[in-house]
């Protein structure tokens, strides 16, 4: 596997939807610790709609699939994560562009960096603020680093997934400075940020497309 086709992308997004469905209560429980206990429900609303949209997406180019994914997220989720996940996918769509028939590894590196930048633009989050960005940025960086080391696409995706998971885990020690958790001050320290946890699920799903089918 050397590029990501529309079919790969659809499998990846469907996998993400499945992981969100499975982790729904867990994500809301993380949000309950410092926020408003709805991140799982919010994201699931989006990924259920996303899964429905994917059913008709087979004939489209990857950029268009990403664009529609972004619009679906924006239109169905609401809250912070609706705007932020929407931005993530829309920025990736813009980086990939409408023409590409498949996503080349370097193109994905740019798309991931654009996605991380999108989170910063929309939410004014900086690394260490205990947000989605703390999973997204390490993943984008790890992916680009792996590629530049000459790793294969599947290996780079695994590196990204590992970095996202580690980044999410690291948010437990952080004090929130963005989003609803930031209101509780020091009480935000001690649990993983739900948005970072869900971003880790997204990268886990991406890594899966490079793995041999089960």
């Amino acid at each position: 596997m050397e590029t990501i086709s529309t079919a790969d992308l659809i499998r990846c997004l469907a996998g993400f939807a499945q992981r969100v469905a499975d982790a729904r209560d867990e994500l809301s429980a993380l949000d309950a610790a410092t926020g408003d206990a709805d991140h799982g429900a919010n994201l699931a609303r989006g990924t259920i709609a996303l899964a429905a949209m994917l059913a008709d997406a087979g004939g489209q180019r990857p950029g268009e699939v990403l664009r529609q994914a972004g619009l679906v997220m924006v239109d169905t989720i609401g809250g912070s994560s609706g705007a932020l996940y929407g931005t993530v996918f829309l920025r990736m769509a813009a980086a990939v562009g409408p023409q590409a028939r498949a996503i080349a590894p370097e193109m994905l590196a740019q798309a991931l960096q654009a996605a991380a930048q999108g989170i910063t633009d929309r939410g004014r989050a900086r690394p260490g603020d205990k947000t989605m960005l703390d999973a997204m940025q390490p993943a984008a960086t790890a992916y680009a680093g792996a590629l530049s080391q000459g790793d294969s696409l599947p290996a780079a995706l695994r590196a990204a997934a590992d970095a996202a998971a580690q980044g999410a885990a690291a948010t437990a020690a952080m004090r929130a400075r963005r989003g609803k958790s930031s209101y509780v001050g020091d009480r935000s320290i001690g649990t993983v940020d739900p948005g970072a946890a869900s971003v880790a699920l997204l990268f886990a799903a991406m890594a899966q497309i490079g793995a041999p089918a089960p």
Partner: protein
Amino acid sequence: MKKFINDPRDVVTDYLTGLEAAHPGVVRFDRDSRILLRAQPARGKVALVAGGGSGCEPLHTGFVGRGMLDAVCPGAIFTSPVPRQIIAATRAADAGAGVVHIVKNFTGEVMNFGIAQEIMAFDGIRAETVLVNDDVTVPDDDDSAGRRGLGATVLVEKIAGAAAERGDDLARVVAIARQVVARARTFSVGLTSCTTPERGRPTYVMAADEMDLGIGISGSPGRDRVPLAPARDVARMLADPVLDDLRPAPGAQLLVMLSGLGGTPESELYLLYGDVASHLRDRGFDPVRALVGNLVTSLDQQGAALTILALDDELTALWDAPVHTQALRWGM
């Protein structure tokens, strides 16, 4: 979970259906767009649009009607509305004299209104944003998402609504709304956690002898967990941070809003109000207007939020102007 609901996924729609059924002369529920409109759309005046996560009723849905809001886009429980709803509400409300978006300073609400405005800009529709950020819990620096929009939202909606109703132009309505924001502050105390329909159990657990200082809406925990205190002390704990931040002039005339969080009976709120009012007088202020009740809530949470607005003659007159919504009504 003991709630009057059917399917947890339908609570917002079912609530709006009931609201319309009870007040057909006041509101109309557009089910397809999930927006709430005045039963009789206003003409030729500045339109006021607001929206946020549901579960905080009567905010904002209970404030649609003459003298207040024109359209509201309610999100899922504790989740700000999506841009599509915001756009539908804005289009429906627009009566040709401009639209004001009253936005509570929550990340989700700010971002979704922002996206909606970016999209509407393509069509040449512009809305002025009034950002409400009255919560004194959070320091006003960059180390947080910034001060939340809480009880002052009601005051902005009422007072700017009255200005729009009397025919003020867009710039003037916006200026008055911003003046309310500048002169109002809120601080809240929670006694229990709320239970969302989705999760069906309390969001967090609190001991029987504890309370949370500095909560907001949407059932997040507070900033400090402290021992439960008698109403007299709670009154001080609420009023002092508000006064110390707002710093009204000595002897200032105040509008005092004491909102329950949904699960606190009004009789307790009035009891607490008595202690708040006497503390305000002790500190040399004059509470000339009071609004006590469950106004900005978090489902069934027990607790209270104190909002104080430093009045001037114009704000007082606009506050007293007639209003006819589900939750606020006087003069008509």
